[in-house]
């Protein structure tokens, strides 16, 4: 049974309150690596949303129908890494074969995501107990959480790319040019996103 309220909660929780980059500090490598240009940031964001959605569904099935069955939940980290890496490789090959246009757009970003901690993070969270409700996500909630976490990641990435394109022309002190000023910017953005953590009238604190 799909609970619409819970999906809305998941959306707001994943995008704003527990933003992957700016609150959980996961996936920082692509966040700094691909945020130099808006266009490549957009492509990377799309690829992350895509991979998070399919990884969420497959790892959820894996967890509930294989690992829990044999009481192997302590192995989920290593199994999830295996599943995600294999899955992304498969998807990349299938895209190149059947959808060259999509491959042109996402292709170069997909290998970057295979062993990304943000993708692993979302699958682990999906199979964790929710801190507020004390329940695990259903399959649909898991996939939705994956999509929305990807949206949150893309939002942070796009904001960062926009800011970095502007700071290119700003008179940054010589010692702080390039990556240092990007770190400071990211820190300030994280501070700003801290403001969302007061939003707990939903049952969205956990995840």
């Amino acid at each position: 049974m799909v609970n619409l309220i819970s999906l809305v909660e998941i959306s707001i929780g994943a995008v704003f309150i527990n933003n992957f980059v700016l609150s959980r500090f996961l996936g920082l490598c692509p966040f700094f690596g691909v945020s130099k240009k808006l266009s490549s940031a957009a492509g990377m964001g799309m690829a992350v949303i895509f991979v998070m959605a399919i990884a969420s569904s497959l790892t959820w099935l894996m967890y509930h129908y294989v690992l829990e069955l044999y009481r192997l939940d302590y192995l989920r980290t290593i199994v999830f890494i295996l599943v995600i890496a294999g899955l992304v490789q498969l998807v990349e090959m299938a895209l190149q074969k059947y959808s060259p246009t999509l491959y042109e757009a996402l292709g170069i970003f997909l290998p970057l995501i295979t062993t990304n901690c943000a993708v692993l993070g979302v699958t682990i969270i999906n199979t964790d107990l929710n801190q507020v409700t004390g329940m695990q996500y259903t399959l649909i909630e898991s996939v939705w959480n994956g999509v929305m976490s990807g949206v949150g990641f893309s939002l942070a990435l796009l904001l960062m790319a926009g800011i970095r394109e502007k700071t290119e022309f700003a008179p940054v002190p010589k010692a702080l040019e390039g990556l240092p000023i990007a770190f400071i910017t990211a820190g300030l953005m994280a501070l700003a996103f801290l403001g969302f953590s007061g939003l707990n009238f939903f049952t969205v604190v956990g995840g």
Partner: protein
Amino acid sequence: MPVELLYPVIVVGSVGFFFGVGLAIASKKLQVYVNPRIEQILGLLPGANCGACGYPGCSRFAKAVAEGRSEPSGCVPGGSKTAHAIADIIGVSAGVTEPLMAVVHCNGGRGRALERARYEGIEDCHAAILIGNGSKVCQDGCLGLGSCVRVCPFDAIHISKEGVAVVDADKCTGCGKCVKTCPRKIISLIPKVHKIFLACSNHDRGAKVKKYCSVGCTACSLCVKATPSGAIIMENNLPVLDYTKEENFIPAAYKCPFHCFTDLVKTRPKANIDTKCNGCAACVAVCPIPGVISGEKDKRHVVDKEKCIGCGICLNACPVHAISMWGVGSNVKTTAGKR
């Protein structure tokens, strides 16, 4: 031994096995054919990614050629050698590419062209033009701030000590990047075999030009008269050279009273008349410079080596083939001999 101990081994092992086999099968089944010619063509290209072909970088050009969307001769810096090598790979004949080179149509450096102000801003021609259209009185003169120098991928342009841009013919590949970037639009591409070009871009009338540039074109039309084939025409107070029509611009270049033409050949081979000469004086009639060839009728004529400009027009006029070009540099001799 409890069987449960084997569960993690079996589960992780089978997951790994499943994905391993799956990926192996998929890599065979889903293999996408990538044209091997693309790699071959890419290996032949200069790799400067200059964009002269109209594609973003050498790899995209290689792809376009392999797919038949572009001619093998599209790579200007690679020249005909590259074009032929690519054509061999894809099995079509290479379109003929005449090697081009960039030339700067201005010679008005310090001491020749008058400055009306001193520019102390950013070292860039585009920036200088924003402030009152540059520091020179001449509105078409080279600013000498090196926008073209910075954009050249082959280090073929430098600013002379007089302060105008000069192209190194040996290094220039004719990619045309400087032509696009020059804000004055005074750089153009000419066929490399032609060593002569007009080094002025000023459209003002003669009396006006003379006030501010000693090497400016006054539109006197002497070059037009020196080129009977009509390959030079006056357009808007400036001669326009049609490189497709005439191969001999030497008389025009030497007739110019203000030395507006630049001849990249420093010393051309001079004409020499040998003993076959029967004194018909046909060469005297065609020689563009008066007094170069002299001699009595029906006796062997002589060439004044000081005055001869080496245009080679007399070669074809001589009925007994008594004239040949003597001088320095074999490559120079062939071009002059052709004329």
